[in-house]
């Protein structure tokens, strides 16, 4: 038990960590964008034609993705699909798996937001002469995105943290770098603590960035948490009178 952690010995490996971090960042940025787009398209399709065969298949795929572990999805795509003649690089497989995973979860989050809007408003939009897509986009989708933005943000961070698993198919991400360093130095505690710290900072930074983007898109309304206790408006009114 008299082991003293030796963090300075990690210093020579800083470039490896940074390279790994960059991989994790670009993977996350790419798959967040693709995943949300996929979710929007999935929700649109299931909204447009809820009973069509394609929509039902999409619904089944979403349930399948939500009820199986990400690592198994990754292995299936990376090891299983080549058996069907579809060979993928590790990075490709990682991008596909992460995108599908995020899209599946986000589409359910969005659908909950869409349900809250109600059919009447969409029809009101149609009645004003908007096309189906226009009506959907302005009357249904944007309010749903706005309402569900905090939940979507959390989901994106969860997918980023889950991406640590892609190291298992040799994508050189941050976790891969940590494994590499600990196999060289045997400083397992130090390398994993430092890496975990980097993930934590990344998660915090990502949340801050997404909140910023959200404020750009929707204004302050829903994104600043309501203060716990707040003077009721009538008290304030009186102060000015």
């Amino acid at each position, binding site marked *: *038990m008299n*082991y003293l952690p030796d963090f300075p010995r990690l210093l020579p490996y800083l470039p490896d960590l940074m390279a790994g971090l960059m991989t994790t960042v670009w993977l996350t940025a790419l798959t967040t964008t693709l995943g949300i787009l996929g979710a929007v398209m999935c929700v649109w399709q299931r909204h447009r034609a809820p009973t069509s065969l394609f929509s039902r298949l999409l619904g089944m795929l979403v*349930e*399948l993705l*939500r*009820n*199986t*572990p*990400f*690592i*198994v*999805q990754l*292995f*299936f795509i990376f*090891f*299983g*699909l*080549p*058996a*069907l003649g579809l060979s993928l690089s590790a990075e490709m497989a990682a991008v596909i798996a992460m995108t599908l995973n995020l899209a599946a979860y986000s589409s359910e989050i969005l659908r909950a937001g869409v349900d809250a809007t109600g059919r009447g408003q969409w029809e009101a939009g149609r009645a004003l002469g908007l096309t189906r897509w226009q009506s959907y986009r302005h009357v249904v989708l944007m309010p749903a995105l706005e309402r569900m933005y905090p939940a979507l943000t959390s989901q994106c*961070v969860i997918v980023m*943290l*889950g*991406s*640590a*698993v892609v*190291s*298992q198919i040799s994508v050189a991400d941050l*976790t891969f770098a*940590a*494994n590499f360093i*600990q196999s060289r130095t*045997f*400083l*397992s*505690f130090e390398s*994993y*603590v430092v*890496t*975990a710290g980097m*993930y*934590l900072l990344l*998660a*915090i930074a990502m949340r801050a960035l997404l909140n910023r983007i959200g404020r750009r898109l929707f204004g302050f309304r829903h994104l600043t948490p309501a203060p716990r206790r707040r003077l009721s408006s009538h008290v304030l009114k009186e102060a000015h009178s």
Partner: protein
Amino acid sequence: MIDFTLWDILRNLLLAARWTLALSLIAFIGGSLVGLALTFLRLTRWPGAALFCRLYTELFQGTPLLMQLFLAFFGVAVFGLDVSAWTAAAVALTLFSSAFLHDIWRGCVEAVPKGQWEGARVLGLGYLKTMRHIILPQALRMAIAPTVGFSVQIIKGTALASVIGFVELTKAGTMLNNATLEPFTVFALVALLYFAMCYPLSRLARHLEARLNVTAR
């Protein structure tokens, strides 16, 4: 190389799935106990308790579960602690689950309307009695659906224990894949088995949410 029939693969996976269930159960029970302790700690209103709980949650929700498993398995070895993959997985998953369950339950306690506190307070109930008779019963009811929902995340989380060599469903899958060289079949079956465990729970969570919402007042 031995020839594996489909039944051989499935049989081996089913045997390994027992360990997935066992690990999930331990993580759920352990996570509940620790999560409950955290929730009560927070409710004591001791100075620092809220901060501690927040940091704890932030730490386990802000780092990858895989990293937590590595730390629990490889990280502690340098201190001379020789932990088995089984122990490391159980500990890491317990801590991971406790952070999420605590967060869910804290949210439920806070979601009980302020009027309930005031209603109890003007009747003369103190903090503990209000908690026990008024707040917790209502929070408990709200907590059921999201707790069941989170159990799905725990089952899926146990798949990561395969990475530190714990032989559960996913690890059995990779081993069978190496033996059979039939990745498509093997991982499809693995996925189906997880689905068979998780989907009923997901459905149950959704059903409970709808049902408890309807009668919620």
